[in-house]
């Protein structure tokens, strides 16, 4: 691209259990790395400043806004996205609960909510309503008013 373009970074990373070897421009966000370089467009762009949570993925088990992570930073790390949530055996209980509880309308925030909620349930299988609301405060939804999202997460809790 432009003159004086800094060199790309060699990144070896595991995404949804599959190893990828990538050349990532230093300035490229993890969000764009996933969407543009690898083609995983399930992770959504909403604001690019960490205030909507639509781009939530997890790195080594911790949820992050992938717009505020550089692709170069995930060298040697394990990244999980919405595309890795279902297994050949079927949907994750959260995905199933979101469908059954009608917890999505337009669906653009849904991948972020699901990845975030999984981050909660993986560590706290039976969170209270208050804890669910606190955990998901970094994910904006403009369609549902959150009622059915909270209920779906409760349903998927053990």
């Amino acid at each position, binding site marked *: *691209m432009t003159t004086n373009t800094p060199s790309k970074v060699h990144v070896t990373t595991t995404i949804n259990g599959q190893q990828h070897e990538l050349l990532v421009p230093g300035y490229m966000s993890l969000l764009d790395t996933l969407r543009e370089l690898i083609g995983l467009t399930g992770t959504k762009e909403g604001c690019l400043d960490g205030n909507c949570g*639509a781009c939530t993925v997890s790195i080594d088990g911790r949820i992050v806004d992938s717009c505020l992570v550089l692709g170069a930073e995930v060298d040697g790390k394990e990244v999980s996205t919405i595309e890795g949530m279902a297994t050949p055996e079927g949907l994750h209980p959260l995905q199933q609960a979101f469908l059954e509880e009608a917890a999505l309308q337009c*669906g*653009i925030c849904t991948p972020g909510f699901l990845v975030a909620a999984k981050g909660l349930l993986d560590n706290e299988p039976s969170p209270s309503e208050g804890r669910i609301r606190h955990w998901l405060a970094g994910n904006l939804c403009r369609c549902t008013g959150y009622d059915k999202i909270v209920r779906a997460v409760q349903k998927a809790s053990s």
Partner: protein
Amino acid sequence: MVATFEPKTDYKVVGTRPIRHDGYDKVTGRAIYGGDMKLPGLIWGVCVRSPHAHANIKSIDTTAAEAMDGVFAVITGADMPKAPSKLVDLGEGNINFKWASNKLMADDKVLYRGHPVAAIAAVDRYTAEEAARKVTVEYEVLPSVTNVVDALKEDAPILLEDLVGDDLGEDVTNTNMAAHVRHEFGDVEGAFASAAHTIEREYNMQMVHQGYIEPQNATAMWDEEDRIKVWTSTQGAFPARTQIAGILQVDVSRVKVTPLEIGGGFGGKIPVYFEPLAAILSKKSQRPVKMVMERSAVFETTGPTPGARMIIKLGADANGKLTAATADIWFEAGANPGAFIGPAAMCVYAPYEIANTRIDGWDVLVNKPKVAPYRAPGSPQVAFAMESAIDELCENAGWDSLQFRIDNASKEGTRRGDGVLFSKIGMQEVLEAVKTSDHWNSPLGDAPAGKARGRGIANGYWFNIGLKSSANLAVNSDGTVQLTEGSTDIGGSRTAMAMHVAEVLGIGAHDVRPTVGDTESIGYTDVTGGSRTTYATGYACWLAANNLVDVLKERVAILWDINSDDVDFNDGVFSSKAEAEKTIGFKELAGKLDDLGGPANSTGSVDLESAGDGFGTHIADVEIDLATGKTDIVRYTVVQDVGTAIHPAYVEGQLQGGAVQGIGWALNEEYFMLDDGRMANSSFLDYRMPTTLDLPLIDTVMVEVPNPLHPYGVRGVGETPICPPIPAIANAIKEAIGTRLYETPMNAGSILKALK
């Protein structure tokens, strides 16, 4: 002659809650939204935007940007076709091609901050953004106006020198007033003179945004055949095509719009923004071009709903009967004409029967983004004013405000403020449901030390539109049906469409596979907006399904060698009228069609007047920290007449989502404008939409008064629920702190001030 229908109750599919057909793709990340579009050779477009709210463009120098490696095309206002001044109805509001074109790309003058002055297509987004920074624009900054009062002053800076305003039918020039309309009925002066109780108050509201999470986007390819293919997140592929063709000055048949999944719209994705620009960049670069808007530009240049100034005066007799009302309504249009004063006039008095009324509305230009529809455009504003005034009138006279609303409620035959007479409506039923609801009959509860609680109620109304829709059906040999329909699906409507078809054919909701068509695979269909989709497109699906039954009766007639008039159809089974034991199920018949005349298809299309008036009443309990002014919503209930709920879970979702948008509008959302016309808070950090932590669960009470104009009684439901929250919360705050607020947002700062 408009067809009417008797209510039914014995539905098999209607009223159930099947999993939505598109749900699997949406919970797995596979669904393709506009921003996910990929094409071979795709390049990226970005806009160069004005840092000023109002300025003349002295010069633009794009040479440095054009010289950059990886840049394929640069365009400015000079590249825009000169669209003529022509008004076109988009279903929820009109557009004029001339203004619509000017809104997308400034000509010689910028009218709002963020107004595009150039656009660039480059190999990737980062390169395009770098190139955009190399475009130099010389501006002559002009004074700006950002509210209706300043815009109408004698010496106000004029936005559009060639605007001819319509002042009650008279042409006016050198003005920011695009229109002034009036509706007057009865003897208003006389009624006020004899009123026992009157109240007159002024209300002001800041502009707010739809706040959809998916930014605007578009991908376009202008090919060698001069055909323009567009992939976009839109609320209506056909209205998008109308706008794109009008702005680009080409025939509509040259434009093909493929609607991709859409990440929220609420009205804001009815107008096009990037589509024509991407097309022109594509023509110039001979490559497909994709554009995705940055969030700050979404706030600064798309969407918002009008900020407003309103003066309401009410009169009632000694017995608590409303007798007179006047409303003066000034709405911000943004940089081009088209604030929603028409709908505001239709909505302001709608919940009440008032014999003597006057409404004056003004559509006023200001140096802010051109407004777009936002969920019941114009109605939440007037609901805030009207429902606050109703409560204050009741407080002053010592009346119970719920009983007052019941006693004065509109009903069949009531005249709306713009003169229309209501048919069968559910305002009274809704208010009776409020009276018997658990929430209304539960105590407010004691506030903790240092806090105060209050409960408020308010009505809301939206008229719900009908318009045009199309649906196609085709039978598969395994007994399922393919449905193609024209309404883009923002909240599960595909499934509601499939349920209409399934109910007619006596098959399951998942035996129908619904697809949203592009503009070359389905007939014209208006926007997903105006709360029309389930009503009008559902109606078209119902028609198509009934037409399919007729087609299939012909096939059964071949099978049994009888006349098709002698074939009956009930609950998925065809039978012979002559020999009742002779039957064949829909699925079995589907498997035999190859030998019975081949493919069985049908279509349905409608052009409908209204989707049935929608009324709702909300109950809000607030708790206010008296030391900080912070408001928490501790309990909230939506009561609404929903006609017949086809898929109750998604109807509840509409009620909850609308209520929460209203809650955000009431408490924190606003365009915070700086003196130079810049929006200070154009991010999700400072434009404070509610988070999960700011809300309780939202209870819903669905009152079902079937709409006689739809075969299953469907009424529009999506827009009404954003109308009551603002006044319900205002009324609750008044009860909690004893002081009434007349401006939105009713944030902690305003409450703290009121507490002093």
